[in-house]
């Protein structure tokens, strides 16, 4: 399907989307509008829930917009479609962003976003693959997604399926040793149908990465582990889409897109403020943030 006209985006009902493959015809302007709506959803959802992780959701908005509205081959009405490109959220605390994106695509009703973190909601505090359509992995315990993604990529190779696997990690998440076990394995098994994306916002709960646990030289680490490294401005949709297209051409090794981002991007008092890693905005802050995101 083609996306509805700008300003009317998007349909919130899976019914209208049917089993069609999601379009990649969105213009940059349309995607920018989608990104803004995702940011508004994140603020509204976490504000209503009274808890959650806005900072690391806001930083990855353009990454998910580029993937879901341009890069991925997927069918919102058929989340289990076997040929779908996979998106795996390893930094499971960015669940509000993933849910908002899935809703904008038609996997979920947009109204359901307001049930985030409530009893019996399909939208758990961290992702749960058993109850939310479109969620590939139960995450939230950091460091596990890259390994999982390698398994999905290896299965695709064994099954002679041409789907591609994308997995989003946080930079702070890369403190976890398992990430580097997986980095070794990804290169060893030559999973060139896999792209890791790092939401490199430079911050973790206790402050700047460089002060908490220095990851530098970060791109150098990935290169040393045998990965094709692409660095982009993670808030620039064109750069992101180019990076994913470039990653597609890499053969014999996996690719990592290091997306330089700003934690809390789009809301002045959340930007580069680790306080909003795991804290929801209060009613007044929601009002100010939504005004900034008009």
């Amino acid at each position: 399907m083609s996306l509805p006209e700008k300003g009317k985006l998007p349909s919130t009902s899976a019914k209208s989307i049917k089993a069609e493959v999601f379009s990649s015809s969105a213009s940059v302007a349309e995607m920018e509008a989608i990104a803004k709506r995702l940011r508004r959803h994140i603020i509204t959802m976490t504000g209503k829930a009274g808890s959650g992780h806005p900072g690391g959701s806001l930083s990855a908005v353009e990454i998910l917009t580029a993937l879901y509205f341009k890069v991925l081959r997927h069918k919102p009405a058929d989340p289990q479609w076997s040929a779908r490109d996979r998106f795996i959220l390893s930094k499971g605390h960015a669940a509000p962003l993933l849910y908002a994106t899935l809703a904008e695509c038609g996997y979920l009703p947009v109204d359901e976003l307001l049930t985030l973190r409530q009893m019996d909601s399909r939208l758990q505090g961290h992702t749960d693959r058993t109850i939310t359509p479109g969620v590939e992995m139960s995450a939230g315990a950091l460091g596990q997604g890259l390994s999982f993604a390698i398994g999905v990529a290896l299965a695709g190779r064994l099954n002679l399926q041409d789907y591609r696997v994308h997995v989003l990690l946080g930079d702070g998440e890369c403190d976890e040793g398992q990430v580097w076990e997986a980095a070794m394995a990804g290169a060893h098994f030559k999973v060139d149908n896999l792209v890791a994306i790092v939401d490199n916002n430079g911050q973790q709960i206790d402050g700047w990465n460089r002060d908490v646990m220095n990851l530098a030289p970060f791109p150098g680490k990935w290169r040393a582990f045998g990965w094709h490294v692409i660095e982009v401005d993670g808030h620039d949709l064109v750069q992101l889409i180019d990076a994913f297209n470039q990653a597609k051409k890499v053969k014999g090794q996996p690719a990592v897109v290091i997306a330089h981002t700003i934690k809390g991007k789009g809301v002045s008092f959340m930007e580069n403020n680790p306080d909003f890693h795991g804290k929801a905005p209060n009613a007044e802050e929601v009002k100010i943030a939504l005004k900034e995101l008009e």
Partner: protein
Amino acid sequence: MPQEVSLREAYGQTLVQLGRENQNIVVLDADLSRSTMTQFFAREFPDRFFDCGIAEQNMVGIAAGLAASGKIPFASTFAVFAPGRCFDQIRMSIAQPRLNVKLVTTHGGISVGEDGTSHHSIEDLSLISSLPGFTVIVPADAIETAQAVRVAAASYGPFYIRLCRPKIPLVYNEDYRFVLGKAVTMRQGRDATIIAIGTMVTAALEAAENLKGEGIDCRVLNMSTLKPVDEAAITKAAAETGAIITAEEHLEHGGLGSMVAQVLARHQPVPMEFVAIKDTYAKSGKPAELLQRYGLTAKDIEQAVRSAIKRK
């Protein structure tokens, strides 16, 4: 003396047969394929075998991803390393999403021997049984191992199968059919019931035979499916024999003994004794020496039976 056969060999050979029958069977190991015997599968199906190196957390995650994509992964290492080295990965990547991963670990218990404390897996059953949705099996011999592995392959969901290092006597013949979730009555008896798993089934049978000379008539159950535990068989044995003794190569807390005690407390309280490792770590030694030092022989079971009967 019945023939002594390796459970690990039985596992390795069964994997090869399964691999021939079903192309969705894939196998992962963490640099121990020569010990876990996944090497047989690796040789015949190199494209479906993934040696993850000495990185158990990553192995578990890759297995989960394969399972989420329709494969039936068997992942193997020593019992002390999985779940010990990758508990949270098993919890979040396999147990919570109920993915179809089969963890088959070897070198369970202290019959590992000389390698010592770091390689003695005495907490694994407690850890893995604590995870909702996991099926846990501890086979008593090579024949039961082969069948349990087949049942795991054919049943959807997360499985943990714990094997021992040494060759141990066969307690079954080829006519045996393993039934998931059902205790097997190895020997009838009226005075007390010994419930055993794994290597301790042979010891339990020996103890029952010895006690016959004292006029004590023991029932012996093989509780090879540790979880979900066969509550009906435990309750019936308690009601009919009035005393229960558990025997396992594992710590006293969190394993077979704890599970049986929970069932008895709820349904049929009777005097109970525990043959298991007390709250301690074992050291290096020959398997037989260790089993003796830490109270896991037929003699220890006999003493426990006498104590339980006295309290009836």
